[in-house]
């Protein structure tokens, strides 16, 4: 990592710290869903992709089967595959560094890397690594804090934790709704999920809404 530019480091670290604090919400949600503090921390170390982690514990908390939780998390994880395809030619790494690069290939590291394009390839690489490793560090620290905090609090509803989890999902969804078409997809998905809820076993409506994404994505627009 030569030619460290101050603005790239600043961009990367501010994203890493901000996003890392969301880990508190994950740690709390995970413990509220019945996972132990250790399991919550392992999630953030090993899975390390926020939306998938929230989905897995969310489906379990809704009473859904393990397969449904795993499938929802995996489907949310497929976007990291597309990020990897974009990042691999940029990073040009092999062996253990490639494994580490893969683990920190997430929304934020890819986003910051792409945003550094005007500053050149070296800045893009630095943005990817500093953001990816930075989010990894802060996300794990804050997960532990959230998990310990939730365990100390007791009844989740009494502290509003049962509303904090859907609010966190709404917060993750919000920045993605950049066009009217995407807002229509979101509202349709919510309506669809509410419609099928009484007719399907608990937890299955979540994974079933993928149908809505398929319908809206089928034709070019």
């Amino acid at each position: 990592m030569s030619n460290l530019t101050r603005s790239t480091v600043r961009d990367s670290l501010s994203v890493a710290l901000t996003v890392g604090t969301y880990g508190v919400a994950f740690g709390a949600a995970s413990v509220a869903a019945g996972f132990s503090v250790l399991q919550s921390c392992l999630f953030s170390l090993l899975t390390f992709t926020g939306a998938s982690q929230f989905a897995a514990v969310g489906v379990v908390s809704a009473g859904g089967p393990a397969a449904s939780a795993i499938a929802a998390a995996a489907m949310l994880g497929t976007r990291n595959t597309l990020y990897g395809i974009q990042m691999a030619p940029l990073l040009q790494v092999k062996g253990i560094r490639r494994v580490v690069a893969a683990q920190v290939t997430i929304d934020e590291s890819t986003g910051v890397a792409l945003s550094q394009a005007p500053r050149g390839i070296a800045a893009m690489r630095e943005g990817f690594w500093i953001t990816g490793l930075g989010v990894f560090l802060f996300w794990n620290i804050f997960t532990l804090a959230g998990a310990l905090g939730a365990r100390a609090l007791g009844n989740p509803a009494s502290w509003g934790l049962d509303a904090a989890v859907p609010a966190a999902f709404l917060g993750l969804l919000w920045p993605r709704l950049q066009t009217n078409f995407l807002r229509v997809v979101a509202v349709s998905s919510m309506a669809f999920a509410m419609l099928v809820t009484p007719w399907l076993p608990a937890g299955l409506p979540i994974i079933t809404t993928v149908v809505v994404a398929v319908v809206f994505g089928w034709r070019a627009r």
Partner: protein
Amino acid sequence: MTTVTWIVLGATSALCFSLKLLGHLVPEAWLANPRLQRINALVPISLLSALVVAQGVVVKTHLVFDHRLAGLAVALAALFAKAPFPVVVVAAAATSAFVYHLH
């Protein structure tokens, strides 16, 4: 319950890492199908929307509109006001807890 949580943790971690690594290993052309890419871009939106519903207004297999909805309404207002993520979550939690204790 304990076994289920370990299975979910193990399988989710293995699959999510494999998906990340796959991106670093396959040639770009493999996933170039435009329809697949369009659907893939919408999947997070559909799943996150469904998760808002499942966590916000569902108990088991019933729609239940309770204190959580008050929290979600405040979260929505906070997002419209461009509040940062932690503020959104804490405002929702505080509102929901307040309404919960009113009963």
